[in-house]
């Protein structure tokens, strides 16, 4: 329990640092939302009026204090471009992104674990080379490349999945999953490469341990030894590494969601950045950072459940 509280405290401290950095970074960015709203229609006079009405002329420290206090009290303010309460926007988009983050993680793990185990069992043989070359190819081309390939193959040529868009799960749950599948697959493939490598090296370490030899000496079938005895030990580290990829995933969804017109957190972040919607940038970045940290926390806690050794220590 103290372990949990401890981790929580460090998460809170980091979150505070994140608010500071976010605020600083977003304020360094030139241009503001007033300029973005008016576009080429902007002239000094009009800009000034708009700025005033958007509250962009307050002193920085006041804006920061206002923002942090708002985050605490649940007053997240309104998005300047979308004219909607940020909290409402984020909640809706977080669900959308949650779906593809989880789905891509499931796809990645479902592919990476067997592939990694296979490579570890046949270490330094051709199977290993095939597995590592496949994962290298995965990381050699950017996510969006795979995204476009998915659209062309599965939407345009095969017509199995819709090419883009997002529907609310409450409206059409199947439709939501259909639309989430292609971006998840593209993200999952990129993620898989990394996880395969990690599974392989973790499994390699575990397979050289004494208890594996003991299991074999008991007469257990090789299948049982690898898929029960060894994998039960590998799953903890692999999940931890997978959890650490959440941060990477939240970076990748920015491009991927925009590509698929799948409007989740990544898309929202990109829109906020492009439109210099400072309150929205600050909140999305903060929420993404918080989600990343909390996921890592949860993964750590999950590890405690999976691995009995951690419980006492």
């Amino acid at each position, binding site marked *: 329990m*103290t372990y949990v*509280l*401890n981790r929580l*405290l460090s998460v809170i401290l980091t979150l505070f640092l994140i608010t500071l950095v976010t605020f600083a970074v977003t304020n360094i960015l030139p241009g503001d939302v007033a300029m973005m709203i008016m576009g080429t229609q902007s002239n000094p006079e009009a800009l000034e009026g708009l700025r005033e009405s958007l509250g962009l002329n307050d002193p920085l420290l006041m804006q920061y204090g206002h923002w942090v206090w708002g985050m605490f009290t649940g007053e997240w303010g309104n998005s300047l471009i979308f004219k909607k309460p940020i909290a409402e926007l984020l909640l809706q988009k977080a669900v959308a992104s949650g779906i593809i983050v989880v789905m891509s993680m499931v796809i990645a793990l479902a592919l990476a674990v067997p592939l990694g185990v296979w490579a570890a069992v046949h270490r330094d043989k051709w199977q290993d080379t095939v597995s590592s070359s496949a994962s290298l190819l995965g990381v050699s081309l950017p996510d969006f490349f795979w995204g476009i390939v998915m659209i062309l193959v599965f939407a345009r040529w095969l017509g199995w999945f819709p090419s883009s868009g997002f529907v609310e799960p409450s409206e059409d749950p199947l439709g939501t999953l259909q639309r989430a599948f292609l971006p998840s697959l593209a993200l999952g493939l990129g993620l898989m490469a990394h996880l395969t490598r990690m599974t392989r090296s973790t499994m390699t370490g575990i397979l050289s*341990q*004494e*208890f594996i*030899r*003991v*299991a*074999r*000496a*008991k*007469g*257990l*079938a*090789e299948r*049982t030894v690898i898929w029960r*005895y060894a994998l*039960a*030990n590998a799953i*903890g580290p692999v999940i931890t590494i997978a959890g650490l990829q959440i941060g990477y995933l939240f970076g990748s969804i920015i491009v991927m969601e925009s590509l698929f017109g799948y409007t989740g957190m990544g898309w929202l972040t990109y829109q906020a950045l492009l439109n210099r919607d400072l309150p929205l940038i600050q909140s999305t970045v903060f929420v993404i950072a918080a989600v990343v940290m909390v996921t890592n926390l949860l993964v750590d806690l999950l590890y405690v459940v*999976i*691995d*009995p*050794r951690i419980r*006492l220590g």
Partner: protein
Amino acid sequence: MKDIVSVDHLRVEFATDGGTVVGVQDVSFTIAPGETLCVVGESGSGKSVTSLSLMRLVEFGGGTITQGALNFTRADGSTLDVAAASAQVMGQVRGNEIGMIFQEPMTALNPVFTIERQLTDGLMLHKGLSQSEATERALDLLKSVRIPEPEQRLKQYPHELSGGMRQRVVIAMAMACEPKLLIADEPTTALDVTIQAEILALINRLKRENGMAVLFITHDMAVVAQMADRVVVMYQGRIVETGPVAQIFENPREDYTKALLAAVPKLGEMKGKAAPERMRLIGDEAARAAQAPRKPRTAKVLLEVKNLTTRFPVKGGILRRTMAQVHAVEDVSFTINVGETLALVGESGCGKSSCGRSILRLIEPTSGEILINGNDIRALNRPDLRRARADMQMVFQDPFASLNPYRRLRAQVAEPLQNFNLASGADLEARVLDLFDRVRLPRDFMNRFPHELSGGQRQRVAIARALALNPKLIVADEAVSALDVSVQAQVLNLMMELQEDLGLSYLFISHDMAVVERVAHQVGVMYLGRIVEIGPRAAIFDNPSHPYTRSLLSAVPIADPATRRFEGDMNFKPISSPIFPLGHQPAKSQYTQVAPGHFVLQG
């Protein structure tokens, strides 16, 4: 009656990047029912490869049986050539007709499964038991290996058990299907001496009760003497000598066996000798010649440790505050005279290493005084401490980890000299050469990297490095524990020779009573952070007065098949935890003097 096992001209090869390496060749032996065969040898002798071949587990390590037969008499009386058996047949044999236990109890159990699951899966597989029947049988097994509270253990995970208990579980697993042959591969090497005694006694009892044969693999001649009916001595993948245990120990035929036996310190063989003595190693004429002249011992005190206490904080809670303390070293006092050796002996976790490190302030002591030549080490600031450390050097246990793999040995030995600007250029080169000579290493080793040396050679380099600053005191922390017995003897002799030549003092930290008896002038026995008994070596070994010292000595295997110690069940008091809540004030160490200089902890 038919032999259980008959190995005939076994040859195992390993494919490596550098080509094919022969693991063992021309190995032949038999094991009769109910017999214990010990295979003994130093590292690289091929003893483990032999045992793994019998289980056909050697394949998983990249080995291939390229020649020979491994005939095993199955339960139905038929003979199976293990070398040619199918994977399916091997699955029936392994764990069912042949049980196996391994060296590392800490890693031999799957950390994420309960004891119950690990005990029952073999039973369900081989004996077709239901889950509940298997659990019942598992409970019986735990009882038969004398694990306390067996019902509770079934639900526990391996990490919740001590090392000794884990090894009992591993034995229970191996015994689950009542095999006709038990292969024990260094089953006690990683264990403390009292636990080793318990496990050896347990194996003996189980063997008697079940009438099974045992193939016992070990490097320890003392254990061989205690366990074996017959002995196979192996060296570099071949069998050197085979024979009944008495014959091997009393009348060895082969030079290698003789040399091996000569290198084993036997507990009690120093009885009546006043000073430490180098071992008489076969082929080490230098040691023999240098035996005679001795420097007269002076009673000048070099190191005085008074009430040394070292505690480590156990941090916890939200604010990472110290919640409890490990009382690693608790109110320890002793002195070491110039040119003498004080051995600190005890089992793992007793605080002997922490004590050694505290003296060098590699870890910071909590309280107490450390005076070297009257100079208070604890009062020094960092620069002064750095200078003071020139007088005290350390040799570590693991010869593989104590040298930087990325630096040439010349640089590593020269480093202390450069640190204090004691030498440079040609002078430095000369000093380093001299040090290599001193530790009897060829001069051309200077340009080598650590991995190019054997364990014993590396330990010599570590000693040379420690000697570079002409220290007065060397703390040798399990300095010979990781070495093969013949190498251990050589290094011990070297250390004793250096002591004689240079008047060095040693704080010799060890768990091995037989080695301690060889090298020490004074012995301190540590238990739970305290010295429970301290005095001249003879006093401790001849008249052990503290109960702990006595049990420790009774547990040591003696390299003499005539004195067998581990027949009945042995049960020693388990060591309790040295962790105490914050603010716990332990009592002062009070000693009773039982003889001049021989003190025993009260209470």
